[in-house]
């Protein structure tokens, strides 16, 4: 900066600083550090060597980015972590179908609620809303007993069965999705749809050719939201999955962290792998996701 402008700059700074701004900046820094430090710590720890992470004092700035943690995590020879690749695949195998099925079912449901007349609509809506507030832990015992019996009858295993897990996730995502889409469908003007119906389209045609294309943003946010619920879910996966090859990522991370002597750089590498896609998805579709949270008070 040029010297003649320097004074101006200090004057400017002095003029800029007021109590309001000072307090604002302090509080802002407090929030920013409090929020970002754990994420910084997770990512930077994942790039440390085991010696660096196990040192006497924490290394706030890693000397260099070391990939040891990641290499160990995906080392096919390592008995503890060798299934992690499979765990990622399992998480995808659970989350993508959950999101897809949620979108399909909730689109149909929301169309019926907003465009069609039928008896019991309010009862249906209210019971869906009630589920929002239901303790997940309450359902585990009866679900476990019920599904074991059904499994005995129809010959499927309840434990280590990813489709069973998807079904339980749908019970969590559908109420949220239905609520979000119903709210969205209400905001779409119905004139075009009615014109379509008069022209002789069936409701199914109207839904597929008019309502659906107009609702792409809402559908994308429902998809992402359901994906994230399934991707992050811990409790049901913890109860229903038993063998390492069937674990989803959260359960895999829980297992390697609760090892008698956990290798924290590996745990943090796994956590980073699990967190980054979610944060990227969120940043890319922030607007829709926030709207969803506000509209539905989306469960978390």
């Amino acid at each position, binding site marked *: 900066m040029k010297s003649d402008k320097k004074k101006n700059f200090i004057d400017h700074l002095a003029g800029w600083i007021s109590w309001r701004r000072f307090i604002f900046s302090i509080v802002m820094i407090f929030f920013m550090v409090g929020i970002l430090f754990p994420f910084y710590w997770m990512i930077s720890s994942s790039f440390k060597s085991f010696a660096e992470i196990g040192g006497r004092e924490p290394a706030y700035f890693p000397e260099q980015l070391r990939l040891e943690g990641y290499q160990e995590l995906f080392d096919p020879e390592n008995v503890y972590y060798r299934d992690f690749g499979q765990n990622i695949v399992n998480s995808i195998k659970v989350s993508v179908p959950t999101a897809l099925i949620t979108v399909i079912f909730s689109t149909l449901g929301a169309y019926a609620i907003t465009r069609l*007349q039928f008896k019991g609509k309010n009862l*249906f809506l209210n019971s869906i809303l009630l589920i929002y507030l239901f303790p997940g832990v309450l359902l585990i*015992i009866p679900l476990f007993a019920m599904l074991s019996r059904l499994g005995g009858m129809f010959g499927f295993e309840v434990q280590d069965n990813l489709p069973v897990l998807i079904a339980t996730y749908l019970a969590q995502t559908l109420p949220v999705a239905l609520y979000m889409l119903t709210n969205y469908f209400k905001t779409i003007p119905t004139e075009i749809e009615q014109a379509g119906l008069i022209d002789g389209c069936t409701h199914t045609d109207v839904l597929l050719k008019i309502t659906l294309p107009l609702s792409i943003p809402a559908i994308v946010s429902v998809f992402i939201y359901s994906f994230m619920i399934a991707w992050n879910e*811990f409790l049901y996966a913890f109860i229903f999955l038993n063998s390492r090859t069937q674990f989803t990522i*959260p359960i895999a991370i829980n297992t390697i*962290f609760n090892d008698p002597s956990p290798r924290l750089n590996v745990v943090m590498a796994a*956590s980073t792998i699990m967190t980054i896609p979610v944060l990227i998805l969120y940043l890319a579709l922030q607007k829709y996701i926030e709207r969803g949270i506000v509209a539905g008070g989306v469960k978390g």
Partner: protein
Amino acid sequence: MSKKNMKLKRTSKNTPLKKTEARLAYRFIFPTALIVFGLVIFPAVYSIWISFHDVGLKNLNDVYHAPYIGFENYKNVINDFSFKFQDWKNAGAIVTSVVYSLFSTIFTVLLGLIAALLLNRPFKGRGLARSVFLFPYVAPVVSVAFVWRWILDPRQSGVVNDLLMRLNLINTPQAYLSTRGVALLLVILFEAWRYFPFAMLMILARLQAIDDMLYEAAEVDGASGWQKFLYITLPELRYVLGSSFLLRLIWTFNKFDDIFLLTGGGYGTKVLPILTYEFSFKTLNFGKGAAAAMILLVIVAIFMILYSRITSKNED
């Protein structure tokens, strides 16, 4: 629905057509209804039944023939040492649950309010700050819980221990998450850290809907910033504060993963959902677990009624 039916619909509103429409609607909601009924409502009712029967691992595959034992499970839960209050050192799950969810929710809403007020004023990089503020809420609970455990690590290599020792506040590394009292405080703070963005978004949406005319009128009358906050902003936020408080209170009361991942439910942090899990899947007494879950549900139901009252008032 066929073309012929649609034409009829335009001209007359007779019942068969309404029936066709209703039939289509039922077909559309059927998948959702089946899942919601089969995997939530039926199990919930079934859970009541289980709580009155002796169900353990031995008869899990044949629950239907489990012997009826009346209120025995409930008695066992209420008399259990990990459930009932003895003294503040052994507060029991019910008191721990109430303390935990009440204080977490208060801190959550308070932090959410501060964050919303911060983001409600224009400044450079507001969009970015808003994105960052939501990170704790959208990130997977498993990873954030374990990072916090690593930050609070009992060894000297834990960040908190290192910082406090550098500041000479402590002489030896402390095991924060395995110290009674401290552990409960930390899980409360963790909840607030993780869920304040939710309250923030709800409050922010309401803040932005407040009519600017109100503030302008107040300025004309010579109101200070604090007065404007007290007499305009807060009253306008009353309902959103109340409803996000109760919504979060209910969800926090139901929460299992956060505490389970941070402390495993030990060191004075055993809340009702964790106790339910332990009765069912550690001691394998499913009847007792279901009874504990029913007690949890009764308390949540009270919150739910309060919540529905607040929201229905809000709609008027």
